[in-house]
């Protein structure tokens, strides 16, 4: 129980630390929301005097950037504790109203990509281990290494250039076709999958290799264990050995990695959504950075921080149940 409390405390502290650091860091960016708006107004022309520009900035930036930083910080933390994440400077709407509708789309992309890459990686890794030393193993290892070495955004750019523009096979932006009615119908679901295909695929292609190589290594280690020889001598069917003995034991150490990845993938969404013009949390974060929209930036950072923390937290707390040998963190044994 004390472990649970300690671990929960660590998680809360981590989120708090990230929020505090982000709060300081975003304000270290050169320029602020007023500068961004001033820049917009100057570029629009129209002969506004400096006084008129200042008046418009005062009207349109609702954040009290003139107050001392510590006052702003205390106010912000107090508001966050009351689940008030502030009001976007650019959209003039609550941050939850800006990021809330975008969040499910990012979760959809990331969850689908993670699921697919994990399934492909684990299956491929297991086959490679079983065929260790074969041509298939050598070839698949090379492919996995290449996959693991290319950043997802490079693959994303290649996909959009060739599969999107050149061969016209996939859409180059958006969440779903504008012509389909939104709702629980087949056209809509297909359209969502079709629009998500390239972003998801670029993450999958860039990451399945890592999972495959880990799975291969784990499986080969398990295949050398004595209890497997015993199982074979007992005449157990190969299928049962592969799934229950090898598969389960090889996959266990990857459980933690999988949960941590959930959090980290939110960070990846920033670039991915920009490439595919996919308005999710990452898209709004990039916009907010450009516009120096502090509240939206903070909101997006918090989503990412909370996702990573929860991922690690859940992994820590549940590993003991998944692999009873670990018996939870209280035993101070790590796997």
């Amino acid at each position, binding site marked *: 129980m004390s472990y649970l409390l300690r671990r929960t405390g660590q998680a809360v502290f981590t989120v708090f630390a990230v929020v505090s650091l982000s709060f300081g860091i975003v304000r270290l960016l*050169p320029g602020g929301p007023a*500068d961004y*708006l001033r820049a917009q107004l*100057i570029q629009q022309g129209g*002969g506004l005097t400096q006084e008129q520009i200042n008046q*418009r900035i005062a009207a349109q930036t609702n954040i009290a950037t003139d107050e001392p930083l510590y006052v702003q910080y205390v106010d912000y933390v107090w508001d966050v504790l009351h689940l008030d994440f502030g009001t976007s400077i650019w959209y*003039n709407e609550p941050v939850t109203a800006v990021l809330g509708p975008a969040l499910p789309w990012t979760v959809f992309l990331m969850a689908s990509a993670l699921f697919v890459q994990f399934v492909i990686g684990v299956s491929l890794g297991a086959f490679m281990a079983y065929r260790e030393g074969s041509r298939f193993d050598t070839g698949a290892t090379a492919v996995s290494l290449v996959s693991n070495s290319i950043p997802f955004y490079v693959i994303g750019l290649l996909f959009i250039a060739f599969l999107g523009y050149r061969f016209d096979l996939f859409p180059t932006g958006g969440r779903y076709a504008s012509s389909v009615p939104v709702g629980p119908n087949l056209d809509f679901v*297909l359209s969502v999958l079709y629009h998500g295909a390239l972003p998801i695929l670029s993450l999958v292609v860039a990451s399945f290799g890592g999972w495959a190589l880990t799975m291969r290594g784990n499986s080969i280690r398990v295949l050398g264990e004595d209890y497997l020889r015993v199982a074979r001598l007992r005449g157990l069917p190969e299928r049962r050995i592969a799934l229950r003995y090898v598969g389960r034991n090889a996959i266990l150490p990857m459980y933690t990695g999988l949960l941590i990845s959930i959090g980290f993938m939110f960070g990846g969404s920033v670039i991915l959504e920009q490439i595919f013009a996919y*308005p999710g949390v990452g898209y709004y974060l990039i916009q907010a950075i450009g516009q120096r929209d502090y509240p939206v930036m903070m909101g997006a950072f918090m989503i990412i921080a909370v996702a990573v923390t929860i991922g690690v937290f859940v992994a820590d707390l549940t590993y003991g149940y998944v692999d009873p040998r670990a018996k939870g963190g209280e035993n101070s044994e790590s796997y």
Partner: protein
Amino acid sequence: MTKDDQGGTAGGLSRRGLVKVLGATGIAGALAGCGGRRAASDNGGGGGGGDGSTDTALTFAQWAVPQDSQYNPWNSKNFAEPRRMLWDRFMRYNIAEQKFYPYAISDWTFDDDSATLTVRDGLSWHDGTPVSATDVVNQLKLDMYTGGSLQQYVDDIAEAVTKRDEKTVEIALNQKLNEQILLSYLQPKRLIAKDSVYGEYVKRADEAGGEEARSKVISELQTTAITDPVGNGPFKFEDADSQRTLLTKYEDHPDAGNINFPKMEYLYMPTNQKRWNALINDRTDGSATLFMPANKLKQLPEHTHVGLIPRHWGLGLVFNFRNEHLAKPEVRKALAYVIDRKSVAKNSGAGTDSKLPVKYPSGLTGQFSGAIEDRWLKGVADTFEKYQPDPAKATELLESAGYAKEGGTWKDGSGAALQLDISAPAGFTDWVAGAKTVTSQLSSFGIKSQLNAQDTSTYWGKVYTNHEFTIGLQGWADYDNSYPYFHFDFLFNSTDANDYWKVPERFEVPPLSDPSGEPRSVTPGELVTTLTESSGEAALKQIQELAWITNQTLPVLPLQEKLAQTFLTSDDWNVPPADSEKIQLYWPTEWLPRTGDWTAKQG
């Protein structure tokens, strides 16, 4: 973009594409059936009908996510591109002909101290109510209350703009105003201020007790977002999602007969690269304006035509007059003799014909059409200094100002090196390329110069406005305006000149009639003000005088004039050729459909 290939365009679910992708999996058959039904119903429900029009949507791009866009023009955030079709402008202006044509304002008359505007007959809002003089009054007043330039020519906004009858509006001016200037202010306005939407703000601003109360009303207006706009243009707003804004033809618009397609789409494309690719791959049907470098232009299909439209504007070097070196006219002139404007324009144009080196640095635009020599400086052009690259003259000027070249570097009287760095907005890549050329030329001549490219909003929002630059980059004219008054007003009377560059009020200049004569003191700002009231020969004389002062004092150094690229496609559309005078408008994508010069090819 035709309905058949819409899958590719609208980011829509392309049946062909999907079938291609899924074909191998064996489920293509089922999907093709399903998609087939959808497509059939789309075609049946589209705008075909018996009127001979084709089932097509004209497709362009927009910067902001469509569902985040808003349509209150006084709220400067995300006022999205569909505005161009949702509302009509007051007038149409053809740059080639330099002529104003009636549009939402069908008639106008001016006398010495007033202007009368008449609303076009038959123009109505998309909810069916007729457009009235009250709407025009609202538009003019809100523009003035929010800082519009016309406010300087009226005494009391609330009293000065009045409705004479249901269709006529009168503006009482506080001075005689050159017709060209007044028309230039009025022409580009869009008639947006529908009384039922904006009337309340106008009433409250009119009745506000003082400046503070009025400011509160205006602040409220500027923070209001309108997501469900009621327009009066030839297309009305249907809906907007994360990818597309959809407009449908408004049959009651007076020019609806010129349009033979039922829909317009604006697709979300937040970067130049996406817009280039969309044009190259036929996903959009055109673009109002977009800078496309030569390597991308080469990839455009044959049916995509690129027109060039003068912006009456371009990259210039602006000087911080607080800098002790730049405050000396000899140094500014020396820079003009060192910099080779041709190579700057070439490098900044990235292989396109979109940048013209300025021939006469005089504050006058129109070099592409010969207007400077043939019209504004007719008979006196030869007197003007062209500042062609001439290191000897630059040397002479710097030496006369007390500088000396030692060890390849120019130094001032105290022995310190002459260092003139250039600050630039990093996002303006063509400008940065031009500025790099300038710093390299200055360095070769012995003037130390570095390029400081800053984040675009930091540059404009902080470095430029807080005058934290030595030499800055800025357009050297008032863009989109061809009449010289606007450029001189920008160079000598604007916020930029007064607050950011600190251009002095007085200059010493020899007379234009005797260039080698004794310099006399002039106040160009006052001359500009006088120009507002002048016309005909008197105006021309004043324009030449101001051009001469600019040429001799160089409050800015004009480097190039920009020609904007505009894109039209002819695979599915009948459009004028790229060199036609018909496209010399801001912008062809907005005007040509209205005038019947951009129609769908019959299917």
